[in-house]
């Protein structure tokens, strides 16, 4: 039986290697367009999504969606094929990195516009009495979008089973939080009467515990919940575009790498097995994607 901890490690490790591989592939010219990686933020995906059921619950993610996608669907192969524009990709190679949609998983490249749709999905699921929790992931920068607040209001008024997860990595592209976010983040949701939780660690076990209470509460009451997670991305916003102080990045890498944080808690042999399997899986997925047909011709 795999423990929660081993599962978290496995998911985070696969996500990390997958994204490092994507960045490598960009540099090698094997991918066009763009990609946003969540290197450093994997604990959010693993910790929160382990409470969600991919058959029943719904996730709406954003431009930085790879980790959420893999944690929810385990579809490493479809993701690499999608980003490389292959017919075998999640969306047949037509969407690319920020348009992963499969089953109950959606993502979208426009900041904030996912929140209204997630609100509607939560409403529909409630009407259907499916018991589903709809989770929408947003970044600190996306707190700038007015539509978010319209939806917090409606979700509260209409008592919708919606979980809003803010991944606060303290930057929106080059813009630091101080220049874009005034006041308190969680107080914004609290002002609409929505219960909130705020976590200041990237320890996946703590995130898992807090998210567990949140999901349980939503399932029990059918009411929305707002969760703020402190995190940090070690990689650039997309590829080469990083204006942050390298010393700051190094300090955060040393103190809050979610993979390193739990590595010592695992049996070394098990850990090595997990790592090896992940390496192999990602390498195979890369090879398979590159061998698959390119999604070229389209018809209107």
């Amino acid at each position, binding site marked *: 039986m795999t423990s929660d901890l081993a599962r978290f490690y496995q998911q985070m490790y696969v996500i990390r290697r997958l994204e490092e591989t994507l960045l490598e592939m960009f540099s090698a010219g094997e991918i066009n367009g763009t990609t946003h990686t969540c290197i450093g933020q994997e604990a959010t995906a693993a910790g929160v999504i382990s409470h969600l059921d991919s058959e029943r619950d719904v996730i709406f993610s954003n431009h930085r969606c790879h980790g959420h996608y893999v944690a929810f669907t385990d579809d490493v192969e479809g993701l690499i094929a999608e980003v490389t524009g292959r017919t075998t990709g999640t969306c047949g*190679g*037509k969407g690319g990195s920020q348009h992963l949609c499969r089953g109950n998983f959606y993502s979208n490249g426009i900041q904030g516009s996912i929140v209204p749709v997630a609100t509607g999905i939560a409403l529909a699921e409630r009407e259907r009495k499916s018991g589903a929790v709809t989770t929408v992931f947003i970044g600190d920068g*996306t707190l700038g979008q*007015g539509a978010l607040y319209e939806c917090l209001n409606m979700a509260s008024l209409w008592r919708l089973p919606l979980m809003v997860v803010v991944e606060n990595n303290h930057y929106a*592209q*080059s813009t630091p939080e101080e220049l874009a976010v005034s006041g308190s983040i969680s107080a914004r949701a609290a002002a609409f009467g929505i219960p909130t939780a705020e976590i200041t660690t990237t320890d996946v076990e703590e995130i898992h515990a807090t998210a567990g209470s949140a999901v349980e509460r939503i399932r029990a009451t059918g009411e929305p919940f707002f969760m703020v997670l402190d995190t940090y991305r070690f990689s650039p916003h997309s590829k080469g*575009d990083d204006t942050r102080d390298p010393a700051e990045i190094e300090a955060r890498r040393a103190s809050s790498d979610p993979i390193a944080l739990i590595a010592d808690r695992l049996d070394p042999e098990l850990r090595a097995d997990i790592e090896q399997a992940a390496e192999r899986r990602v390498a195979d997925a890369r090879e398979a994607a590159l061998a698959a047909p390119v999604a070229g011709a*389209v018809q*209107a």
Partner: protein
Amino acid sequence: MSKSLYVQAINRALHEEMDRDPDVLCIGEDIGPMGGLFGATRGLHERFGAERVIDTPISEAGYTGAAIGMAMEGLRPVVEIQFADFVTVAFDQLNTVAAKMHFLLSGLAKVPLVVRLPYGVNLAGEGYMSGHGPHHSQSPEAWFCHMAGMKVVMPSGPADALGLLKAAIRDNSPVMFFEQKGLYETASEALPEGEHVVPIGKAAVVCEGSDVTVIATGATVGLARAVAERLRAEGVSLEVVDPRTLVPLDTEALVASAIKTGRVVITHEAPSTGGFGGEIAARIAEQAFGRLHAPIRRVCGLDMPVPDGKNNALPNEERIEAAVRNVLESG
């Protein structure tokens, strides 16, 4: 003389206009120390400071609306929307307020606003600009042409980008300024020294010819020019005309060329249905129907969201050439 890139031309226009007029300011996401996602505002923050180069939260409706307010007070804000696609978030402000204010206040209120909109993809299909999928690749100029009250400008090369942006900043109407983002780092030419202002509302004949007129905008101008060069070897003479401004449209120049050649192909990146090519075709049909030897043909984006990566959804040289051959054969 050394050549400048399209993005450098835009950067120069911003520097020159901010230097010339203290009322000019820039506002948008990541335009300060980062210099904008595509580098168009590089150096402005260092030169003019954070008060005139305003970094904003990701709040397109908020800061575009705020820029409209500043413009009504006499400032000349230049808004950068990171990708033209995101302008939808600010649509209400632009349509309801910016486009109508002048009219509602009987011409008393001016809205000297410029909104810079990086649009489209690298039609050569290479690298970073080769397509970011359906949310980062659109060419939404037609939305604003239909708004009545907006000017819509679309430069196809560095010199026009420089001269038209300067004209847009000096204009007292709201101007939607479409920058083809595939051209930022690929189109280059020597820029005129000194003041270079290109009047809004004037088309340019990019190359003269006598057999077929190709009307092209943005990056499709380069495609049309390449086709013109190739066909010249076969003795086919293309006239490539770039409207440069869609609203107000230089109908006279387009009709004159259509009458001269009697055959017209129109090409743009945006989907054909509801695209501005339809308006151009209608004007030529209204004014020169009897002088045409063949039906007007359009080579546009397919009527679908722009897919990620390399594909056939957008115009290319082959499709333009095929349309040219078609109008030559039919009549």
